[in-house]
């Protein structure tokens, strides 16, 4: 019996290298020994200064009736019957936390060890959808646009050296499909099609050092965004007044105004992209625009019998049938405003 117990001790002596899920690594290659006693991590790839749960697992021992002693960096932190998990606070990037679990059961004694070295991956992304010049926000993806992604790994070895991206193997997955041609050593950046209409794209990147000793993972969900049509005044002197989007109902203190439609997040290279089709209506009548400036119209109320212009606009694309947006604005002009440019919105 003693011999048997000793043999088991040797067999289940397990080392989980680095932040990879602690796996029981057998000192002797006896089939099945790997699963005798192991430590699993949750989350699988712990971040710096975070809490990771280490759980002891065994297919041989009845852990529920075993006495378990947990040691972290040489200090006993937990001991008792059926203490099958502990929570450990990770250190900074590159720090190493050594964990050992010793069990004593009716079947004998065994131990497993694991080493926790936290990693992090910043998964950055942006879309190539249209936003106007000087827009301060991020371009969001709509159907038909593309998404650029960059995985910035922060893999620091315990000796303090950061592993550069060209020493890391990246495996990219989109909606559970491995992107084989975009994955590989040093491939930290990819460009993929954006989400489909009303869809959400799930991107996962797994990164591991070339020697496999350090690994991490990041996951991202990118939802589809509907293009947003905004209407602005295109002022002859100040340019497009991007800071004054027209509301659903707007009063303008002049009798003529040029309007420009800006299709935020549309799959286009510019607001005047030749693929974009703007259909304007003013007071239920269609308006044909200058082909070179199809996203602009000018409305004049100087001698009109009414003061309100109901502007309807719909946007489609000649080949991207998923691109669709519409807007409606009720604009009330100041008929008494003298001249076509006398009433300036900035002079109050």
């Amino acid at each position, binding site marked *: 019996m003693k011999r048997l117990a000793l043999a088991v001790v040797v067999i289940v002596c397990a080392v989980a290298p680095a932040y990879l899920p602690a796996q029981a690594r057998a000192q002797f290659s006896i089939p099945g020994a790997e699963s005798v006693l192991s430590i699993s991590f949750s989350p699988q790839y712990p971040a710096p200064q975070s809490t990771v749960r280490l759980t002891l697992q065994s297919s041989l021992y009845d852990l529920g009736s075993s006495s378990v002693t947990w040691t972290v960096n040489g200090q006993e932190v937990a001991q008792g019957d059926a203490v099958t998990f502990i929570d450990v606070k990770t250190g900074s990037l590159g720090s190493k936390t050594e964990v050992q679990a010793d069990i004593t059961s009716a079947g004998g004694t065994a131990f497993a060890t694991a080493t926790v070295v936290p990693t992090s991956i910043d998964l950055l*992304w942006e879309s190539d959808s249209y936003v106007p010049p000087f827009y301060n926000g991020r371009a969001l993806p709509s159907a038909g646009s593309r998404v650029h992604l960059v995985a910035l790994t922060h893999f620091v070895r315990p000796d303090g050296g950061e592993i550069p991206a060209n020493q890391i193997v990246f495996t990219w997955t989109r909606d559970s499909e491995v992107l084989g041609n975009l994955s590989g050593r040093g491939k930290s950046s990819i460009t993929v099609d954006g989400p489909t209409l009303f869809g959400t794209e799930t991107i996962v990147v797994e990164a591991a050092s070339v020697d496999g000793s350090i690994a991490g993972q990041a996951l991202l969900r990118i939802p589809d965004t509907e293009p947003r049509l905004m209407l602005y005044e295109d002022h002859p002197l100040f340019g497009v007044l991007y800071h004054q989007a027209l509301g659903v109902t707007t009063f303008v203190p002049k009798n003529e105004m040029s309007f420009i439609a800006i299709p935020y997040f549309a799959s286009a290279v510019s607001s005047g992209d030749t693929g974009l089709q703007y259909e304007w209506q003013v007071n239920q009548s269609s308006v044909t625009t200058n082909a070179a400036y199809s996203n602009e119209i000018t409305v004049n*109320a100087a001698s009109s019998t009414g003061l309100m212009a109901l502007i309807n606009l719909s946007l489609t694309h000649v080949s991207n049938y998923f691109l669709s947006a519409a807007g409606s604005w009720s604009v009330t002009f100041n008929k008494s405003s003298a001249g076509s440019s006398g009433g300036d919105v900035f002079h109050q």
Partner: protein
Amino acid sequence: MVLGGLLGWYVFVRSQVRTTQANDSARGFGTAASFGSPAGSTYTNSAGSVPSTDIQSASGNPAPRLWKVTATPVAGAGFAASSTQLYFAERSSGNVLLADPSVSSVTRLTNTLFPKVYDALFASDGSVLLRSATDAGIVTTYAGTISTTTAEGPVPLAGTYLPQHIKAVSVRSPQQLFFLVATPTGGTAGVTANWKGASQKPVFASTLQQWRVWWLSDGRMYVAQQPSDGIMGYAFTLKGGALQSLVSAPGLSILPRTGSTALIYSSSAGGVNLFGQTSASTTPVRFTVRTLAEKCVWAPGKDLVAYCAVPQVLPTRAGYMEEWYRGATHTSDAWWKVDVSAGTAQSLFTPDSGTSFDVERPAIDGNGSYIAFMNAADKSLWMLRITP
């Protein structure tokens, strides 16, 4: 055959006239619609009068505590070195003017026309970057310097155009630039350069294009992704070409401080929160006031104090920040003083009920006496004396 040709021509002309009348009618130029006149369009016309900044002679009296420097739109402003004088550029003309709150004066310094300037950044000597965009959306950047002014009045703005497609730029006085240029293959290349765009040194490269950049007077560089409500954003310190993580948060907007690693940042995700930390290694504190970091400005000096414009009515709906960027919503702000070391905020200035401003691009003079800011609602320029 001749008659047939004439008939065809008549039919064609009539159909074209109908089409034109229908278009004119819709635009309000026809008589059929209840709305319109046969007046011409101003599409290619320019206005008869050019609204420009009211030039104010020195009254000898200091400006009021809250001074509306100009009601006409400006493209940007920046304080002169060791002075409370404020350079600013008109949006319509690109002319550079100088406001002096000590005597309530506004003086036009340059007379070179740069129409439709959307963005202007100043060095402390008055050198200016005038940024505009072509009809095709190509961003242009003119780096100008003001030649010696004379008693005769405004002088030309001399300078040169920097490369097109500059996506982001930061000015480090005197006359140093850090800018990101879009590359033909996508992505951006970040370089430092002198005011003429020469002596370029690569400092950054990315396959992404939507960045904000900072080059502080102490030499430290930062880059941050352009924010979006509820979407994780990342900010980095740029050191030796490498990105070192600084902070990440949904809807992240940052305000780094020169001379220290203290940081103010905001997060926008279903509501806006403002945070501060005294150094890179300390735990951030959340302030009771809620605003965007870009509505704040660090005070000069040793104390980790900043001034923040805070909406008086808190925008709680999701998407506020992006609506603000699109000019679809505006707030009426009050000024608060936030102490990052203490994690406290106290009211500094609340405008009276007849005054409203939605602060953007605040700047502070070297002595911490005045804050200059633009009103995002109309691009007017204001100055606030910090002490009553």
